[in-house]
């Protein structure tokens, strides 16, 4: 009887520690939310603003944002299991959509605010999906 109670108590303790770790390792979802929100600025700016100064300003702001997010990642104390694969899939998906959005926005839909809005949402979608999946794992 005591052996059974001990086993249950130990299992409970292990499950509690695992849950605490999951709860404290939700930084990647926050990272993805911020990067997704950034798409709503970056994509329309990249498609609708023209000229040398605008290009430099957009590129510079994007570099600063990526540097800030990278610094945020480097400060984290825990890396969730399978992070490398997950991050690779999310970023590859975003890269494809972003490339497509830029290509179409600069050829077929030049200076179209409607397309810029749709493209921004499309670029944010893989990141939001990743954040949603990540958050589901924490719960």
């Amino acid at each position, binding site marked *: 009887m005591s052996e059974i109670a001990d*086993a249950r108590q130990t299992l409970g*303790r*292990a499950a509690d*520690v*695992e849950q605490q*770790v999951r709860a404290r390792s939700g930084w990647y979802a926050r990272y993805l939310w911020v990067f997704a929100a950034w798409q709503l600025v970056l994509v329309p700016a990249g498609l609708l603003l023209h000229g040398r100064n605008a290009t430099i300003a957009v590129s510079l702001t994007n570099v600063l944002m990526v540097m800030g997010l990278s610094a945020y990642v480097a*400060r984290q*104390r*825990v*890396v969730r299991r399978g992070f490398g694969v997950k991050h690779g899939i999310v970023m590859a998906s975003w890269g494809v959509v972003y490339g497509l959005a830029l290509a179409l926005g600069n050829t077929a839909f030049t200076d179209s605010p409607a397309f810029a809005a749709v493209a921004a949402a499309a670029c944010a979608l893989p990141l939001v999906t990743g954040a949603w999946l990540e958050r589901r794992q924490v719960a």
Partner: protein
Amino acid sequence: MTGERNSDGPQAGNHPRHDLAPLLNAPVRLSVAAALAPVDKAEFGFVRDLVEVTDSALSKQVSLLEEAGWVHVEKGRVGRRPRTWLSLTCEGRAVYERHLAALRAIAAG
């Protein structure tokens, strides 16, 4: 290895307790394994705060797990700050899962 089932000893039998890894019977070591199970790696300080032990106590327990080949210790730097990362090895993960499965079987009666 400590986590392997001993089929020749006097305790050999079908009871799930024979699948328990004696090294994980210590609460701190089990908590360390549980802390590392859902992650690829975790910083030493993160595990210390979670398990609520001192640096030296955690260091001692981690050394035992490292000697068994269940935990990998990786030292590195982020900027100027030294960092020690802990992770479960494949063998460590398998032993931990087996240990939990044995506990579940015991708990089920």
